[in-house]
């Protein structure tokens, strides 16, 4: 018998996942890596307002909808781990119980990261 080194304990409870909208670039990585396909997001391009006048016009993708279906989410954390911009974070805030399965589909307003209480 051998005793392996212990795996580290996560420091934050995994009650749900929240979205830090300011960091999201609509890159689609979370929606693509989710094993249960529970994330659906859409975006559209807009001219980048931060470019100086006279510079070549660049576009940025602006997030429209960000939908997470909690009835499919299995809290694996792949989306949190793979987001290149750390826009998805674990949260202590649990997913509220709902009267219908449709109620478990959260939009960006529901997913918005709340200040730590």
């Amino acid at each position: 018998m051998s005793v392996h080194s212990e795996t580290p304990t996560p420091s934050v409870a995994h009650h749900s996942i929240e979205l830090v909208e300011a960091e999201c670039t609509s890159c689609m990585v979370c929606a693509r890596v989710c094993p249960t396909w529970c994330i659906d997001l859409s975006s559209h391009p807009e001219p980048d307002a931060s470019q100086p006048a006279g510079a070549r016009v660049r576009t940025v993708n602006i997030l429209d909808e960000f939908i997470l279906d909690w009835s499919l989410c299995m809290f694996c954390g792949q989306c949190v781990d793979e987001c290149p911009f750390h826009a998805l974070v674990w949260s202590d805030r649990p997913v509220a119980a709902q009267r219908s399965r449709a109620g478990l589909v959260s939009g960006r307003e529901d997913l918005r990261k709340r200040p730590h209480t």
Partner: protein
Amino acid sequence: MTDTLRHVEPANWTSAVAVALADGFRHFDFLTAVDEAGRAGGFSVHARLVNADDPHLPAVRLSTEIPREPAELDSISFLIAGASWCERETTDFFGIAFRGGSDRHLLVPRTHGTFPLRKEEVLGARVVAHWPGAKEPGERAAGARRRLAPPGVPDPATWGDRDPALPPPTADDIAASTAPGRSRSRRPR
């Protein structure tokens, strides 16, 4: 609280459980398996036992590896009666036989015919279902050309549209072709 991991050979599985019980880890938490296709191959079987006298002590997590064929391991139900439920569930989902244990089906009917949690079990409905990840950044709806394979859908050459002259795909083939694409994350781990 972290677990103490004890990895053993299959021949020592029941004695390892007996030792853990004798050490005071008498609260049986779970027994389950992981399909290691595409990685080590075969299956790993895991059992977790919590200390009954002091539950705050780190629990013991026993693990062992068994081959895919034959997928067998000794039953621990003679040591822990409640483990029989978990063993039957593991048999239903992975097709692992527990020698000396019960072979009654628990959750998957005998008529189902396959083992749902084995990696060669393909979710055929996903091949035609709408994948939210098919959109490109900046799109509101997916364009006609799908550029990336969704997780869980094997590429047609492996499963859906396989050359009939080839032998059936192995679990390793399917595991390799259903893995999702990854991005590079700069988060320190």
